[in-house]
């Protein structure tokens, strides 16, 4: 029993059980190598998700190399060159749940529903981004080589 529980936690299936919309994944080192649900990402869609001020809201905390964007934040590191610094697997893990790499991470977990406190009813049980959204953003960020 204990072994089964441990395996479930490792695969992230505990999260999947709590909300249908969270895809299973396997963490290795500080990355998640396999695309969620085996989905292919679109960098173009990912760029739109990153710029969306209503949903992902990445730009309240980060800058991206795009002179058309104003009022970007500086709580997180600039995303310029992130595709050269991190592998797609490392980026995927930081989007799904950065506390998997660093328990004190400030960045929100974008594909997690388990273990969150006082979530407003409108968003309870739903991750911020779907598996497809995550893969799109991974594709966009991986292409930011400088």
């Amino acid at each position, binding site marked *: 029993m204990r072994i089964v529980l441990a395996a479930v936690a490792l695969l992230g299936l505990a999260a999947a059980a709590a909300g249908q919309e969270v895809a299973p994944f396997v963490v290795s080192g500080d990355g998640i190598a396999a695309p969620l649900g085996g989905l292919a990402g679109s960098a173009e869609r990912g760029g739109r998700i990153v710029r969306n001020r209503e949903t992902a809201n990445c*730009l*309240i*905390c980060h800058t991206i190399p795009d002179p058309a964007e104003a*009022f*970007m*934040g*500086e*709580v997180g590191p600039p995303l310029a060159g992130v595709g050269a610094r991190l592998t797609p697997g490392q980026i995927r893990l930081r989007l799904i749940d950065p*506390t998997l790499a660093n328990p004190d991470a*400030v960045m*929100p*977990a974008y594909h*997690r529903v388990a273990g*969150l*406190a*006082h*979530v*407003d*009813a*409108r*968003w*309870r049980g*739903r991750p*911020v981004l779907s598996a497809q959204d995550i893969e799109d953003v991974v594709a966009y960020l991986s292409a930011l080589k400088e």
Partner: protein
Amino acid sequence: MRAAIALALVLAAAAAGAGEVRAPATFLSPDLRALQDDPSRHPGWLWVDSGEAHWRAPPAGGRPSCQGCHGDIGGMRGVATRYPQVADDGRLLNLEGRIETCRSRHQQAPAFGYESEPLLSLTAAVALQSRGLPTAVATDGPAASFVAEGRRLFETRMGQLNLSCAQCHEANVGRRLRGDVISSGIGTGFPAYRLEWNTMGSLHRRLRACSLGVRATQFSLGSPEYLALELYLAARAQGLPIEAPGLRR
């Protein structure tokens, strides 16, 4: 010019100092700060004027006005520095709660209601009497457990975005979050006139905005959670001047 740069560096260094709580005014743009200091241009003074009128007006039913028992509102000097405070009956009261208690207990009149114009006005007018005086809340004795609860809430990650108050208002003070510079997150400027609201609002209304920002449950105005947080914020602000009525973006 060189002096301005040196000052900016000093301010930047102060922003980096971990654990240091700074007065909200030090985070305001020079324009907003000047406006906050100028009663002739600060729209919050409309509420102060109306609060002073409420102070003098007797309620229906023959009970005394606030002034009838307390005298001139100038006698409220220093009172706001000591709130929130635990009352004799063990309840934690902020200034709004204290005024509502007088309203029902001593004026035997129906409560104004949180965020109502008369309560915001009276709170602003009473708080103004302490403008510039150092925050001095009691944190020991019966207040200690409320302070501890407030601290626990302040440090708990909440909402779909999984962020605690402390992660923004301690770990990221001075950084830009979209158009805002993150301050130490204390309540000394409230009630405040917020341009985004186009009106005066209470500290609890501001806290509801922060909760919504991380997609967390918004506790109700006057809830035990926000009261405990308010006391913890005041404990963090101990010694810093009351700025109410504040002026905010």
